[in-house]
């Protein structure tokens, strides 16, 4: 413990204390944090800034941290909500020191709304409103048009070809886990593939990298076989766990492809660098391949190696396409409307920014508007 008289007895020789010291409750947090800020000290090489805290303004200060001189901020995360605290900063260098005035009192508290995310809340509310509006319209009977998705239309062709060749079908979710939206979006497609496989009595193989996805896949395929009236054809040994190791999974799937030589392969899920290894092996055995992933870095590989690739949000639209109920289609229409709104907003921002840059000082107002909108749309973490 170090009391005030020790602090004030410290010699002030040639050092400048940090200026504009402020201590405030940390914004948008769960409480228990106070942020201390001070001006940059540029004339104190080899110095450190020691931070002292007390619950009284003139006694009981204890050192809580020693920061490098380059820092201008410290977050004290060892405070109790509702208690008053005082802070004092001391610059130290080679036995010399300079003391800044005490700041405080300051109390920490928890907030009920993260104001740094207000832009997210507003945009989220607008997006939800657009979706709900189109769902409501669809419920009232407005007809919605959905364009054909080549990748989804090709499912029947792929299954037919596998049937003609008397070869099995392989379906992979990649390394996706059940919390990945793309895996949930791929489950209805697995159900469709499984129903057709049951109808045509073709073997369906689903190697998995995640045990929860494996369980979901087993349930989905089992139900599809039941719906088709062929529960006798369902074999849980065809839907197994391989490994969650990335290249172990690729090696396992490659082995299955080379041994079983499937006639059709579906790559629908989450893929990383193993995508091309598996898709090229599938191509080498002459399988018709259909892919869809939300991982944009893997899309070029699938486009190069597969016969059909669902790009972007097409895989999310699959369930609406397979089950074209008005309410499902309403969400697709809402999505299209929001895309239009985004295109207009992006174009307006580009025009504002470009006009501001071209007109120089005359366009300062335009640049300011552009920067303000861009900053507002960038939420705090």
């Amino acid at each position, binding site marked *: 413990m170090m009391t005030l008289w020790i602090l004030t007895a410290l010699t002030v020789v040639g050092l400048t204390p940090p200026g504009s010291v402020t201590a405030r409750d940390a914004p*948008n947090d*769960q*409480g228990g944090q106070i942020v201390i800020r001070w001006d940059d000290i540029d004339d104190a090489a080899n110095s450190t800034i020691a931070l002292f805290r007390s619950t009284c303004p003139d006694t009981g200060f204890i050192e809580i941290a020693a920061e490098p001189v380059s820092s201008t901020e410290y977050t004290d995360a060892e405070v109790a909500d509702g208690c008053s605290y005082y802070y004092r900063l001391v610059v130290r260098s080679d036995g010399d020191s300079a003391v800044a005035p005490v700041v405080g009192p300051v109390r920490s508290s*928890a*907030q*009920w*709304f*993260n104001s740094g*995310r207000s832009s*997210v*809340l507003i945009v989220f509310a607008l*997006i*939800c409103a657009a*979706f709900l509006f189109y*769902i409501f319209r669809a419920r009232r009977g407005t007809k919605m048009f959905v364009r054909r998705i080549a990748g989804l239309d090709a499912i029947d062709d792929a299954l037919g070809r596998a049937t003609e060749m008397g070869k099995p079908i392989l379906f992979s979710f990649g390394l996706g886990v059940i919390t990945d*939206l793309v895996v*949930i*979006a791929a489950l209805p497609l697995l159900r469709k593939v499984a129903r057709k496989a049951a109808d045509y009595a073709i073997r369906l193989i689903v190697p*998995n990298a*995640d*045990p*929860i996805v*494996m*369980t979901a896949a087993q*349930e*989905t395929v089992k*139900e599809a076989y039941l*719906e088709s009236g062929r529960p006798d054809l369902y074999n849980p*040994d065809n839907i*197994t*766990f391989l490994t*969650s*190791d990335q*290249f*172990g999974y690729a*090696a396992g799937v490659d082995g299955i492809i080379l041994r079983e030589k499937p006639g059709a392969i579906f790559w629908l899920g989450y893929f990383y*660098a193993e995508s*091309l*290894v598996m*898709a*090229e*092996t599938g191509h080498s055995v002459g399988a018709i391949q259909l892919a869809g992933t939300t991982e*944009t870095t893997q899309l070029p590989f699938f*486009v*190069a190696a597969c016969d059909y690739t669902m790009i*972007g*949000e097409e*895989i*999310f639209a699959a*369930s609406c396409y*397979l*089950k074209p109920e008005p309410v*499902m289609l309403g*969400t*697709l229409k*809402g*999505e299209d409307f*929001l*895309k239009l709104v*985004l295109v207009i907003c992006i174009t307006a921002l580009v025009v504002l920014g470009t006009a501001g840059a071209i007109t120089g000082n005359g366009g300062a107002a335009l640049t300011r508007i552009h920067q303000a909108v861009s900053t507002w749309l960038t939420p705090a973490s």
Partner: protein
Amino acid sequence: MLKRNLPLAIVFTTALLLVAAFFIPHRPFGDLESRFLNWYAIVAGFTYLLGIDSLARHHILRVTRRAPGWPFSLLLVLALFGTLGLGVYSWFKFQSPFALRAPFMWLYTYMIIPLQATMFATLAFFIVSAAYRAFRVRNFSATLLLLAACLVMFGNVPLGGEVWRAVASAMHKVIPSIDPAALGALEIPAVVKDWLMKVGQTAAVRGIGIGLSLGGIAMSLRIVLGIERTYLSS
């Protein structure tokens, strides 16, 4: 009825809580996300028992039935339980399977890592075969793709710079007023490559990204509101 409505109610409540947690830092909402993730990690950890059961049962059955390729299944079962045994032994002997002198660590360093690296290395060959097919000049789009790929490759290798400097020298011979050093320093192949990667490629990826984000939000809303039920059993 309960079999279908109870999961929907759980999904709706959990989603509401997580949305609230994103905007409300105050306890108990502030740490809900990390708490839920912890729960998920615990549940997911236990489900690996299901995975091991599935894998082991499948291959033990293949061995007992002498299915085609059963020796590979036997190898897998031996490797599975051998790795497990070595891990447990290392835990007792060295307090951690990942201790430097532990046999499990030896297995990991000298067998698993090289096997992973080998599989990763095959990617280079697959890229070549896929690129060969993708870059064949079949139509206008494929030709554009081929041209863009050549420009990017040319801008990425030192040869691109050398060729450009040779072009600058040749131009200086034809038009003496051109400064070959200044023209060579422009590094046009690298500039073209950067433009293609930063403008052309990024614009396409962002376009797909915006579509994916909106598609993801629409899908999430369908799940939360119970419109999308295809993931549930009927």
